[in-house]
């Protein structure tokens, strides 16, 4: 028996065609679907039943972490080595505001991008999908729907026929 393929790709010429095909695939019972597009396509996540990402939550938590770190740091250094400047308060929250704000933003922004890459499994040097001959068009002007072989309904012949029937301009098997 030949090795099990990674999946089957259908190539579509517009985002509307892709959305329609993805809807059909869901209706036909396919569950392990993925789509590759040159830009974010609105509505795709809803059809593919992708959960809302948690990046902004990471950002919020990191924002508090950043603000808290900055505030604690400034309070601590002033506690550890109090400088009396003309009798002004040592714990001057208004003077700590700038650094606190900057670190809030710094922690939040960096954490969100790291979380985005982490959750996406990036960076990685290779991926089975890159072996597909027409995959490079997904960064140009083609919209690609992929039925993965983990799908219980996956069958090389049937899935290929299904994708062609859903309007794919070309269908390609992705080697494992």
């Amino acid at each position, binding site marked *: 028996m030949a090795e099990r393929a990674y999946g089957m790709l259908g190539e579509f010429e517009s*985002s509307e065609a892709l959305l329609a095909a993805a809807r059909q695939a869901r209706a036909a019972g396919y569950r392990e679907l*993925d*789509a*590759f597009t*040159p*830009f*974010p*396509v609105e509505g*795709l*996540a809803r059809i*593919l039943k*992708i959960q*809302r*990402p948690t*990046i*902004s939550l990471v*950002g919020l938590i990191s924002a508090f972490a950043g603000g808290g770190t900055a505030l604690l740091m*400034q309070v601590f*250094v*002033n506690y*550890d*080595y109090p*400088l009396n*400047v003309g009798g*002004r308060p040592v714990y*001057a929250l208004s*003077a*700590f505001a*700038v*650094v606190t*704000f*900057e*670190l809030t*933003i*710094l922690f*939040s*922004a*960096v954490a*969100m*991008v790291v*979380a*985005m*890459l982490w*959750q*996406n499994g*990036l*960076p*990685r*040097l*290779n*991926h089975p*999908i*890159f072996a597909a001959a027409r*995959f*490079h*068009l*997904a*960064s*140009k*002007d083609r919209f690609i729907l992929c039925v993965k072989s983990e799908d219980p309904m996956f069958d090389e012949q049937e899935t290929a026929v299904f994708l062609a029937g859903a309007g794919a301009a070309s269908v390609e098997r992705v080697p494992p």
Partner: protein
Amino acid sequence: MSDRNDILPTRQTMAGIADQLTGIPLHFPAERRWVIAMAFASALLLLLMISMTELFTRGVGIWGINIPVNWAFAIHNYVWWLGIGHAGTLISALLLLTGSEWRNSLNRFAETMTLFAVVCAGIYPILHLGRPWYVYWMFPYPATMGVWPQFRSPLEWDIWAVLTYLTVSLVFWYTGLIPDLAAARDRATKRGWQIFFGITSLGWRGAAIHWLRWSQAYRVTAALAVPLVVSVHSEVSLLFASGQIPGWHSTIFPPYFVLGAAFSGFAVVAIIAVALRSWFGLRNLVTDDHLDVLGKVLLATGLMTGYGYVFEVFDALYSGEAHEMRTLLDRVAGVYAWTYWGAVLFNFVPLQALWWRGVRRSGWALLLISISVAVGMWLERDMILVTSLYRDFLVSSWSKFTPTFWDWSTYLGTIGLFLVPFLIAIRIIPMISIFETKELLHEEKEKGHHG
């Protein structure tokens, strides 16, 4: 933009845009001009290296600074460069959030500009330290002396603000770049480019879930970057406003500085937009409509800066404080009055031509006006520093400031420090956001279909 007026010509195709924009790094079209520009920029960078060597060997005494004018070119150019950087973030982040379509052709090089302008700004306070090798004293580390940085001083805030700004700008720029690096990777035919873009694109493949997470990260970072810009330049203005020097000690400084920063930055964005589009034949992407909007934004921020000028005068008059009034008089009629009137002239007089639509849509006119604004804002930053410092409270400490050769050479050198990495960036990365342009084209075509 109204629905009927598409900002991008809809006759082009997505494939055409991808090939055109990835083609600039992959099959560089203007080799000779690039080499000439690079030679010029490298010469300036060399000048900076020489100036820095001289500075590190002999100390800040080689500059024209003295007591009382102890902050002159170094801090004035620092503020100028940082201000230029801010427009890149505003175009990219603020206009992303407001959904302004015209941003998509400008954001990439505007962000690149930000990055290198902030680098130019960032080296100045370090050069100005006198003992720059002690710059690490600014960081809270457990020193053997048991002391810590003074967190209640704006000078300490500064390093946190600038480093945060640099890091967040870099992260935002790179996040936006990843999908385009992947597009370039997929178009690359030569082995070297394939490896370069293969590694830098981090294995991006445009999967639906990736786009979803990416969009969220990108948009929320943008939302953070906007208040960051305001905070950073407000903090810079507090370097001045927290002191008691007449002409600085005013609550108008933060907004005045932030608006001036946006004004000078948009001018430089316009300069780069006009230069790049004629250099690489990008008229189909950076259209006359883009220049039109840039011109309007320049005019608006210019008028707001003008409002700052008026209120600065009002502030001094309304305070009735003798030293404030004296500084005001020094500004408009002192030995450095030429910097004040020069700033007014270069900033606001040619700017008025932008009221006319024809002027805004002409690349040359916009270029000349923008250069005038960059010069005007440079004079303004100089004016704010020198006219306040050279005559402060005690007559016995009055003095003058004359820039030396090394002041000028360091300043010109930082232009090299800006241009060299910028030219390298033009050479190796797509200078207009490919996927955002395609997204916009797609939306415009959609609207066209549905009438």
